[in-house]
């Protein structure tokens, strides 16, 4: 828990593990450049100096490429081929030469101005795969300017001891030099799970959180920073208590990793015999194996936005079918719950007609999109029903806020099945169809929904956001985002009780069940299934295996009687600390 002076920032969990250390801000070493006017006689030597810097940089990139090729393979090394071409790009070089020759400016000024402008022009692109070229341009720019300034040592070369690296972004070149010996953890403002920094950090076993937006604004050189690569959080200036907790969790994570072979085979069952279905949230088909390796007994949330966002075109039925089938086969006999596409909100693609909206989370997203673009919806449903022939596939609809939506969606499912039947295409007819329970409306009409859905999976992230009216991305109010708020506990209780009354199972696929205190409360509230990030599975399983259902229920019942979030949090944490000291609270 953040205390005064400390600050918790939320980003994307990019590489697992916990790290605490002194901050090293990579971009502090800004390359200072003075604009100089050359005399006509100086122009010739300046051009020679520029060409020499290009040649040195060429050698340097070649070396990095070789290192990366040997360590991570030629696929990862390809980006440096592109950097070499940016270095030698005719537009960039000729414009720099022109500025030196005609405007009679010094090489570093000319090159920086040219490349910065090019990078800014890429920044303005909307298509992410093309816009990201800006970072590569800046990477090359920095290399060349360093050589022009006679500072061949790259930023970060002066790291002594072990540090937590903080940067706006890590370029491929910077990421290539990160080693376990000097870098304990990584925190960056930008990037996602597939950015260079994330790939490199995972390959080298360095905990990393990316996409923090303002990490570089909130930390200074030598601050103490904790990086929780399992949950995607970093904490600046953690107090003594927090430091002790991070250290415990760091050791616990390493122990759990060491004992993974053993732990993953154990059932997720409380000492008094209550079984929890412990499954994983995945975003990409490749993550299914990771989930299995870490003891998942199924996929509780298979997000499918990836297929729609990876390029500017609709994913075909075959492409989706193949991906769903592979995951279903791999997981068999365990269930795979595929969530139909949830575009809109913060995920928009102009080819789908979804756009930046004034109020995106209350806008055209989730099932609202699918019910209007039924041709897109049907393709996905066909792929899911067909994949259901080979495994235990279930599907669920996101953002349901009325019974009409569920009925319409179910009706479209029937139409799709009829079409498949009439065309004699094999499909799984008994595929369970449930809903993500994530709007306050769904809580209030849970009884009607429960009659027509096969299960509820509570998406706590959105349920909290909508119920408390808090956008946790907004720093001014992020502290109001409180999973243990009485309104949330009561909503979850309603969903569980109503679901059970109608004989359907109720699970949780939000971050709340990946939090130790949250997991204990959810266990006590009677949830049947937890689905969380694959990296958190061993930790959550250990909690389930150490807390009796009877005690967790009592704790949950008493927590439900408290009136404020702070009271609940204090009560739950004290209880956990005294009753289950083995649980390390984040």
């Amino acid at each position: 828990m953040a205390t005064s002076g400390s600050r918790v920032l939320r980003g994307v969990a990019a590489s697992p593990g916990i790290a605490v250390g002194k901050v090293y801000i990579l971009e502090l070493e800004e390359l200072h450049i003075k604009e100089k006017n050359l005399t006509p006689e100086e122009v010739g030597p300046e051009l020679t100096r520029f060409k020499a810097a290009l040649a040195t940089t060429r050698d340097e990139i070649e070396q990095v490429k070789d290192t990366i090729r040997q360590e991570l393979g030629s696929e990862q090394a390809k980006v440096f081929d592109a950097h070499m071409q940016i270095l030698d790009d005719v537009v960039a070089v000729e414009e720099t030469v022109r500025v030196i020759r005609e405007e009679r400016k010094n090489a570093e000024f000319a090159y920086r101005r040219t490349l910065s402008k090019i990078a800014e022009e890429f920044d303005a692109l909307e298509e992410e795969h093309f816009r990201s070229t800006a970072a590569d341009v800046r990477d090359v720019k920095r290399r060349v300017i360093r050589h022009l300034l006679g500072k061949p040592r790259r930023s970060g070369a002066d790291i002594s001891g072990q540090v937590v690296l903080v940067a706006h972004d890590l370029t491929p070149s910077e990421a290539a030099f990160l080693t376990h010996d000097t870098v304990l953890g990584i925190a960056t403002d930008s990037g996602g799970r597939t950015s260079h920094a994330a790939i490199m950090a995972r390959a080298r076993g360095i905990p990393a959180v990316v996409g923090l937006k303002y990490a570089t604004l909130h930390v200074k050189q030598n601050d103490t920073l904790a990086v929780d690569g399992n949950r995607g959080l970093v904490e600046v200036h953690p107090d003594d208590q927090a430091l002790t907790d991070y250290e415990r969790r760091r050791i616990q994570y390493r122990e759990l990793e060491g004992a993974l072979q053993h732990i993953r085979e154990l059932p997720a069952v409380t000492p008094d015999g209550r079984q929890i279905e412990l499954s994983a949230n995945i975003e990409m088909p490749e993550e299914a194996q990771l989930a299995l390796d870490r003891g998942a007994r199924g996929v509780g949330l298979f997000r499918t936005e990836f297929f729609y966002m990876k390029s500017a075109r609709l994913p075909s039925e075959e492409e989706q079918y193949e991906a769903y089938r592979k995951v279903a086969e791999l997981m068999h006999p365990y269930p795979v719950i595929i969530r139909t596409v949830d575009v809109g909100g913060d995920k928009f693609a102009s080819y789908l007609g979804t756009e930046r909206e004034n109020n995106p989370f209350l806008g055209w997203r989730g099932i609202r999109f699918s019910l209007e673009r039924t041709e897109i919806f049907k393709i996905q449903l066909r792929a899911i029903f067909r994949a259901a022939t080979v495994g235990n596939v279930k599907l669920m609809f996101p953002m349901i806020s009325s019974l009409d939506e569920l009925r319409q969606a179910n009706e479209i499912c029937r139409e799709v099945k009829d079409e498949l039947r009439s065309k004699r295409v094999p499909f799984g007819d008994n595929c369970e169809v449930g809903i993500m329970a994530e709007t306050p409306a769904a809580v209030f009409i849970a009884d009607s929904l429960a009659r027509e859905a096969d299960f509820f999976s509570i998406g706590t992230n959105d349920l909290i956001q909508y119920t408390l009216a808090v956008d946790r991305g907004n720093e001014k109010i992020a502290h109001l985002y409180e999973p243990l708020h009485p309104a949330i506990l009561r909503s979850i209780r309603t969903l569980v009780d109503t679901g059970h009354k109608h004989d359907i199972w109720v699970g949780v696929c939000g971050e709340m069940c990946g939090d130790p205190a949250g997991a204990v409360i959810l266990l006590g509230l009677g949830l049947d299934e937890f689905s969380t990030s694959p990296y958190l599975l061993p930790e959550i399983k250990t909690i389930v295996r150490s807390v009796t259902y009877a005690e967790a229920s009592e704790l949950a019942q008493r927590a439900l009687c408290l009136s404020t979030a702070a009271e609940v949090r204090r009560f739950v944490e004290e209880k956990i600390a005294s009753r289950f000291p083995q649980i390390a609270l984040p």
Partner: protein
Amino acid sequence: MRGRSGLRFDSTGDSGVICCVHVRAGAATPGSLAPGAPVLDRNRRPGPGRGREARRLKKRVERIVKVVNDPGIHLRSASTFVKTAAHFKADVWVMKDGVEVNGKSILGVISLVAEYGSSITIRAKGTDEAEAVSTLATLVENRFYE
């Protein structure tokens, strides 16, 4: 139009030398770059007119190909494209939506934002122009052999 403003490359066509043209300001003066002007300027390619220019344009070697790789010609595939183009003596240009760039400049090629499903025109001029165009077109059609 989506996010295309600002990224403007220019090809002068005839000479094959990409230079920066301050198109926005009106009078295009190759070689002069006002502060704040885009570096990656691009120009609209002249359509076939009359006389010598039209005859020259009719003779040019070019092919229209569809981009079939995901997510389009971005960093990696542009890198392959440019590397292949560099093998030829001929000058190479790539055009999309009426904007043409030097086919040997990776930054130019990426700036076209040639997404999956879009069509591009590959044109070459020089001793091995026919081979250049057919090799590059085949490369695009075969998803850059990725």
